[in-house]
């Protein structure tokens, strides 16, 4: 044992002794992860580096997070740090419940707001403040079954680039006698439906505050045509993205619109050559858009230990280059991912991220989203024409935005 290691060992001992003397700082962290996933792994690694900080991780179900958090805030049981899905940040920020990280980020050597992609950055920005740091990002693209392309006489190297091409491809690929649908996607009446529809709206120049547009009507008409002609399963109306893509993996749908979270399961279960392409655009040369998913790490304004909490957020940000390979989502900032898994598909999603746009931000996001879902569902069930449904949605949204 040389002197240096003795010195290290002693200083380690002193560090241990001093932490034993002073109580470690405790941080409560709420997450939607299960043990073995992102926040649990990261908290363990962080605690190994910072023995004076103890992180208590608690899993909350994704769909309960907002309610549990609100209740926690109301009863004084809120955590110090939590995960929030990105359209919900504005709700909490607007109530002054989140710590504005801007001053911390300005001091930080690790986090540089300019490195964060615009979509994810906008999801944590509210009225000039920055209320969180994206933990990663995801977006959607078009998965397709290259074997079915070949069998149907299509060229798997030129996947559909426009809506018309998508429709044509779906038509050729649909094989009712083999129980194969051309396309799988999700128009379910939840946030997932909005998530899938919004890019279609944005590609034609609309957005959440401007839904009653010709482009939106065109998109909805196309969705309806796809369903009416049996190119996608009627269950699209009630099925989330994960279950819809399950049918793609099982070989009963030739294409599927979904995100990178599908890849681990797809690579173990899909017994065919699967590839991915950017979401088709309304016509050649139109603007691209894509959905922006994943959530943010935020610090509650009520925390007693903002400095330690921010230290942990910095640590998470520092490890952004690992999120694709280790945890299955895309980096939300400019980092280089070495040796990405599924390199071709990673390249597609990486490009798609450039077009990913935030949902909102608006503190009443769930109600805006509901208006959009209602328009989708009433059109697809034939209760209203796309134009009427979108006009009704616009009326409800205007009332919320007023």
């Amino acid at each position: 044992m040389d002197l240096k290691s003795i010195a290290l060992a002693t200083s380690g001992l002193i560090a241990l002794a001093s932490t034993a003397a002073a109580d470690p700082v405790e941080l409560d962290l709420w997450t939607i992860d299960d043990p073995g996933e992102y926040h649990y792994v990261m908290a363990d690694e962080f605690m190994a580096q910072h023995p004076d900080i103890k992180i208590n991780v608690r899993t909350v179900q994704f769909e309960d997070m907002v309610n549990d958090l609100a209740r926690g805030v109301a009863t004084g049981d809120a955590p110090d740090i939590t995960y929030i899905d990105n359209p919900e940040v504005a709700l909490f920020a607007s109530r002054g419940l989140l710590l504005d990280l801007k001053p911390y980020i300005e001091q930080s050597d690790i986090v540089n707001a300019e490195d964060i992609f615009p979509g994810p950055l906008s999801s944590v920005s509210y009225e000039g403040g920055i209320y969180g740091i994206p933990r990663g990002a995801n977006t959607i693209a078009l998965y397709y079954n290259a074997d079915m392309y070949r069998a149907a006489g299509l060229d798997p190297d030129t996947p559909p680039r426009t809506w018309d091409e998508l429709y044509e491809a779906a038509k050729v690929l649909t094989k009712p006698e083999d129980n194969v649908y051309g396309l799988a996607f999700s128009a379910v009446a939840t946030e997932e439906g909005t998530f899938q529809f919004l890019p279609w709206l944005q590609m034609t120049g609309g957005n959440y505050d401007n839904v009653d547009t010709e482009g939106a009507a065109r998109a909805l008409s196309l969705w309806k045509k796809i369903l009416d002609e049996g190119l996608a399963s009627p269950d699209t109306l009630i099925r989330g993205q994960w279950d819809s893509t399950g049918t793609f993996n099982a070989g009963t749908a030739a294409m599927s619109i979904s995100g990178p979270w599908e890849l681990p399961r797809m690579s173990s279960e899909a017994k065919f050559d699967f590839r991915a392409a950017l979401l088709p655009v309304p016509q050649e040369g139109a603007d691209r858009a894509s959905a922006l998913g994943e959530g943010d790490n935020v610090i509650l304004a009520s925390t007693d230990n903002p400095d330690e909490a921010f230290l942990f957020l910095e640590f998470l940000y520092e490890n952004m280059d690992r999120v694709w390979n280790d945890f299955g989502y895309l980096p939300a900032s400019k980092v280089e991912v070495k040796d990405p898994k599924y390199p071709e598909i990673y390249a597609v999603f990486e490009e798609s991220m450039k077009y990913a746009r935030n949902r909102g931000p608006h503190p009443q996001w769930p109600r805006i989203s509901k208006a959009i879902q209602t328009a989708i569902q009433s059109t697809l069930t034939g209760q209203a024409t796309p134009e009427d449904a979108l006009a009704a949605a616009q009326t409800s949204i205007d009332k919320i935005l007023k």
Partner: protein
Amino acid sequence: MLTFTKPFRDGAGFDTVLVTLALGYLVLFSGFPLVYNLVMSFQEVDLFSLASFDRPYVGLDNYTDVLSRPETWGIFLNTVKFVGISVAAQLSIGFALAMFFQQNFPGSTWLRGLFLAGWIMPALVVGAVWSWILAGDFGVLNHVLMSLGLTSERIFWLSDPNVSLYSVILANIWLGVPFNMILLSVGLAGIPEDIYEAAEMDGANAVQRFFTITLPMMRAQLGAVISLGVIFTLQQFDLFAALTQGGPSNASNVFQYWSWQLSFQYYEIGVGSVISVLMILFVILVAAVYVRSTRHEHIA
């Protein structure tokens, strides 16, 4: 202080204690949430003011809001259909099964026990299993129906707006049959065998015996089973969450699920509470009918 008539030599206090124990417990743990809901229905409530009573009162605004929504009437009708059909079917199937297993045949008790599986299975699991059985493309129900030639087209049980409510009802009937059956079995077992024997000697046939002996003797159980059935059906929540989420386009939405959606998905808590209050009003009606029906028990 409640005072009761003294049916026995002494000890009305004993009765009071027994009743107060249960009633006190209920008022403490269930009465408070009900009142809380009632109060919220007159207030402007958001997610962050849930924990305090100090919220702005808005009079009947939430009520007029609910009544002015275009979807309210349809969801109300769905609720009535859901409760009516579920209870009627559960009761008749449960009654039929209870009478069937009442006959003494080899394995009757054992086989009857297996019906309780529906009661044991957690609703989350029941929902997941039914969602596969009813799935349009790969669901086994469509597969069986098409193999038997009963239908040539696939039925989209969960996503066809004309069918989805009935699919949830189907799963709910499945869930409720064991409860009805076992309770009615208890009642049937309580009817003395010699009454039937006497009636048979008098020449009454099976149908007559059913209407003159079984039904009247079962009044207490039937009243309990029906009113509890209505209340349980009004509480059915997990099946909607697992099967259709009230969709597509509210085609299978009912009050209890809608109230939850409004409060906890769209954070319109005051409006969600109005729906709860409407449900409470409905149950008041059911409870009153039940209490009235118990008046006949001792005459019978």
